[in-house]
């Protein structure tokens, strides 16, 4: 579980995020993929665990059976944005991070290990 509580880091104004699209952010040297859906914000590692390339922020956001997802832009595996689990490959997952919006600013708090 979480090793030690991390600080919240301000990343960008909410208006900088387009609904249904992601951006990459650098938080404490860690590459984060940040997504805005119609009513939610999600943050996961930017690294695609299948190909190891740092590309998840550039995937297409959508839903599968009501679950919010992002599809890796390289080989299209879908990830559950809430849990980080890969829906196409059992056992594969990406790390999630905490994200919130305060005063119009998007903030991220890293999770080290899960």
């Amino acid at each position: 579980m979480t090793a030690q509580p991390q600080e919240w880091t301000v990343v960008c104004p909410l208006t900088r995020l387009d609904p249904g699209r992601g951006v990459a952010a650098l938080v404490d040297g860690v590459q984060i993929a940040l997504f805005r859906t119609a009513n939610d914000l999600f943050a996961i590692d930017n690294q695609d665990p299948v190909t190891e390339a740092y590309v998840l922020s550039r995937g297409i956001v959508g839903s599968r059976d009501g679950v919010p997802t992002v599809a890796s832009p390289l080989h299209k595996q879908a990830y559950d944005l809430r849990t980080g689990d890969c829906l196409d490959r059992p056992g594969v997952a990406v790390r999630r991070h905490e994200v919130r919006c305060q005063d119009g600013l998007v903030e991220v708090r890293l999770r080290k290990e899960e």
Partner: protein
Amino acid sequence: MKNSRLVVVGNGMVGQRFVDALRARDSEGRWRVTVLGEESRPAYDRVRLSALFDGVDADELNLHTPDPQVRLRLNTSVTAIDRARRVVTTTDAEYPYDALVLATGSDPFVPPIDGADLPGVFTYRTLDDLAAIRAHARGRRRGAVIGGGLLGLEAANALRLLGLATSVVEVAPRLMPLQVDTAGGALLRRYVEELGVACHLGVATTALHPGSDGTVAQLELADGSRMDADLVVVATGIRPRDELARAAGLPLGSQGGVLVDHTCRSADERIWAVGECAAVDDTCHGLVGPGYAMAETVADRLVGGAATVSEPDTATKLKLLGVDVASFGDAHGTTPGCLDVTFSDPATRVYAKLVLSDDAQTLLGGVLVGDADAYPTLRASVGQALPAAPLALLAPAGAGSGAAALPSSAQVCSCNAVTRADLDAAIADGATDVPALKACTRAGTSCGSCVPMLQQLLDAAGVGQSRGLCEHFDVSRQELFDLIRVREIRTFSSLIAEYGRGDGCDICKPVVASILASLGTGHLLDGERASLQDTNDHFLANLQRDGSYSVVPRIPGGEITPEKLIVLGEVARDFALYTKITGGQRIDLFGARVEQLPQIWRRLVDAGFESGHAYGKALRTVKSCVGSTWCRYGVQDSVGLAIALELRYRGLRAPHKMKSAVSGCARECAEARSKDFGIIATDAGWNLYVGGNGGFQPRHADLFATDLTTEALVRLVDRFLMYYIRTADRLQRTAAWIEAMDGGLEHLKAVIVDDSLGLCADLDAAMARHVGAYSDEWRDVLDDPALLGRFTSFVNAPEVPDPSIRFTAERGQRVPAGVGGTENRQPVGLGMPEVQR
């Protein structure tokens, strides 16, 4: 001519056919028929002779049915023809004739080898020959066949079946030298040797030596070596039996045989010759097909008809030792100027060659080894236009049924090593759609090129399919296109709210983005539309394995000025981009980071370049050869046309990428027939081909229209593309689209040539809109600060380059290091077998 006397010499296959044909036609009983045959049995099926060693009884080969109107004398050799008296003589009788038909066949030709007359040396022609071989084989161990042709290989198989260790000795450098070419022969040899038949090629047999019991024991070869064999079959060819005609003073062919005209009549108007003993056009034929044609011709003539023998079909197919071999028409490509198309797959061990006329339109002949499934179609098409693209005819997987035709051991997904058997098992276990198949087999989860085959396998298994695009839409792409077009829907959110459910996904979002783009409704990255694009369209560049992008400016028709080439070199050098020339005649610059893309494009746009749409499901390139401008063979300006087409259709979004090419003459140097639409110049204009494909499932484009003016060509291509864009499925290339179309190519012609659906005006207008509304996507981005803002590495650190993109050097250029980089790659293997031509 009531009750004339007809005498037939020889009761072999053709003689019998002739009698049957005549009796079928001679309803008035004009001819009284006498057949004189030398063998002890009435006619039998010589072609199936070897079946005797497969347990077939001699009686089953019988071809003769008794006929009260036909007198048959067996064990009767004709010894002479007396043309003046019009009688043939046998050892003990004379038979007068009004018409005489010679059907004496051939004798095996035995070369003058010392010892060829030893006991234990046989020919392979008659039932008696085979009986003698069988008797001699008892207790013997080693057999040899002299002659590696069709007959020799049949004989070798017979000896094998008789339990002898068998060798074939052939003086030519390959097996079946008359039928197959060098490459086909090499493959055939491998098959034959695998069956345990040793092949000694390119060496003559000089003598046969007896053992202590006086029967044959050894072969001596021209290279001085000796080979043990206690049974030898000589199968070195045949000689027409023309001795009666020769003695009667009738003219013979230059290679022997009774010289006859196209009605099979000899110089003596009462004497005809049919089958192997006849030389039509100075050529004898050692096959039964041409002989049957002659038999029918003479039968027709004798009842007053006017038949002539047509060009004989010398096609052969043999299913021998379990190996398919077929050869037909001008298999050796002796027609002046002819071209050949070869297909060779060392993995499935299939070799095929088609010989085409110099304009590549007409099939002249071919050779198939290892898989002769296409033989019936091909043989039927000799002398005609090709029934389909050559490779589609030859390639086993391209035989039309695609994945459904694959054997279960075939690897469908080579990325994840998933075989057809794995997929069939998954379907049997309840996978009913592509995502389910992907999830349980992992097929199609890597490069994705096998996904269409997954669909075909599902279709082949008859598994119920929803036409719906994905879980968010129950309608197909085509229906979605019509909805958006007719209802003038312009946003994904309103579309999904009205006609779908959920939030969309990586399937439906790009489809809708592409439809909106095809309809010419604004920039790719405008507002909400940006979120629909996959990453390539989102960054107007091609994502590579390490997260970097590649840049491909348009070079229409592959024509580029030195100045522009220098700019490309300078930009590549200044941004340290890996540079490679593509198959589509342009230049791909790799290794650009997201934030570098606008800087790179600024330089390119300033130098007059525009987007090449290499990232889009859109027209990629129109490749061209230099054509009539430079090439001494060129008949039209292929470069000029290619540039015009590329500029006309640039940026046009489609269900999948589209490629094209223009060749300046039938030599086809631009490989236009491997493209979605390909154009080949003719003396009179342009030929249009559609539905070609390279890549994973290659397919040659089909000829669609010929000798078009440039204007007519452009109109057809306009409609072809627009109809494709409107009606194809998601990620369906034109090849698959046409194949899946009800009525196929003919339907397509009806719609876009004859306007059977009344759509053409609409399609023409749609294309006119596209051409009018085109603007360069990259220039638009550079002019719009809001769009430029998307090209940042990190939203909170736009000045920091992505640290995961690192490079190393290979052959003097930068290539990915680290993630997805060189150290993960396997070394290149150079062990591919080579098949010589």
